[in-house]
């Protein structure tokens, strides 16, 4: 059953049980699909020793970067940590205050998909013969080389969708969809912020992207409340 949370403190209530040491999958590709209000609430929550999974490692001084700046993220798993405006992460990394696991973007997505789909591990074609193959089991199958990759599971997923119905079915908008549907399947508890909540039955069943079974909490962040 999905809880639909509304009101000024909805985001804070939605992340209130995220515990120290939790692994948190955070959606978004750059700012598209990034659940800003949920990340801010997680920062206010104050849980420490977190592992964060995101495509990037924060941009500028807001959102994920602001969370990293608190020093409460022990490790980040991402494909593109360094960017022109990733100074918060860069500083933490260079001073040895954050652990980094760089994962090719396709493996990042597929490893979370595997977690959600009950796959124990899979042989991936990506990264063979590169430094990222170090320590990984390699196998030749039907004449091609693969590396064995393991699932990435989250205790929580914080994602951004566009519209939810009251049951928790989700649809997304354009390329803001990105990691959201995959992360929703890979976490024990999935929290989705949306700009609109509609009555159950208002979404066409053919067009639901994330079925309600994957969504535990919906947080309504109307456009005027979003930054």
């Amino acid at each position: 059953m999905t809880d639909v949370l509304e009101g000024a403190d909805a985001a804070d209530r939605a992340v209130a049980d995220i515990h120290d040491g939790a692994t948190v999958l955070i959606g978004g590709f750059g700012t598209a699909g990034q659940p800003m209000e949920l990340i801010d609430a997680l920062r206010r929550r104050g849980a420490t020793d977190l592992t964060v999974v995101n495509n990037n490692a924060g941009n500028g001084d807001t959102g994920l970067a602001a969370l990293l700046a608190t020093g409460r993220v022990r490790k980040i798993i991402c494909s593109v940590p360094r960017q022109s405006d990733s100074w918060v992460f860069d500083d933490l990394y260079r001073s040895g205050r954050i652990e980094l696991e760089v994962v090719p973007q396709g493996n990042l997505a597929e490893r979370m998909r595997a977690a959600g789909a009950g796959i124990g591990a899979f042989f991936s074609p990506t990264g063979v013969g590169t430094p990222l193959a170090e320590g990984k089991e390699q196998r030749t199958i039907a004449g091609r080389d693969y590396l064995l990759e393991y699932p990435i599971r989250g205790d929580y997923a914080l994602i951004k969708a566009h519209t939810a119905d009251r049951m928790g079915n989700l649809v997304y908008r354009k390329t803001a969809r990105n990691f959201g549907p995959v992360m929703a399947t890979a976490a024990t508890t999935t929290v989705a912020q949306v700009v609109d909540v509609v009555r159950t039955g208002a979404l066409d069943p053919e067009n639901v992207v994330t079925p309600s079974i994957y969504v535990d909490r919906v947080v309504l962040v109307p456009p005027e409340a979003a930054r």
Partner: protein
Amino acid sequence: MSRSLTRGVLTKDEIAKMIADDIPQGAFVNLGIGQPTLVADHLDLERGVVLHTENGMLGMGRAAVGDEIDPDLVNAGKIPVVETPGASYFHHADSFAMMRGGHLDVCVLGAFQVSVRGDLANWHTGAEDAIPAVGGAMDLAIGAREVLVMMTLFSRDGSSKLVPECTYPLTGVACVSRVYTDHGVFEITDRGVRVREAFGATVDDLRQRTGLALLS
């Protein structure tokens, strides 16, 4: 070892109702092909239970009648059904990812045999000339968080279907958590099989008839 003990005390519908009553509010549930589909008739939809069907749907409703019948909308048994508000469709890999990824709260399956440690045999009689058909049974057996079995306690030859070890080929290992039968409800626990309820028989009767050291 009377005939009356072999014949069930509860009807299929009564067993189905008992299972339906045990399904928690808001659960996501898959009902296997055959007898378990009867459970749907007893589910109080007000309690927000959502039915999954392996062929790519959440929010499956009851059997379709009359004009509702649509060949593009069927359940796992290929019976036409209706859609409920809040339903969604997805393809087969996504449907089984949902199942195998542990997202379904409950599934209800029929069985040829269940062992005291919860092994399930429900896909193959083991007969030499039988053509095996596994469908989604093995995926459900390992995928749902709770696997409930609905079956008669005794087969037609009078032998218990709750057994020390399955003699039929297995569907899944140590996957069943509770067995609903016409003679009683059995919990598979780490310490053994516990009789939760017995119908028209004492636990001792059931011990004698099944040959199992049932806990009470």
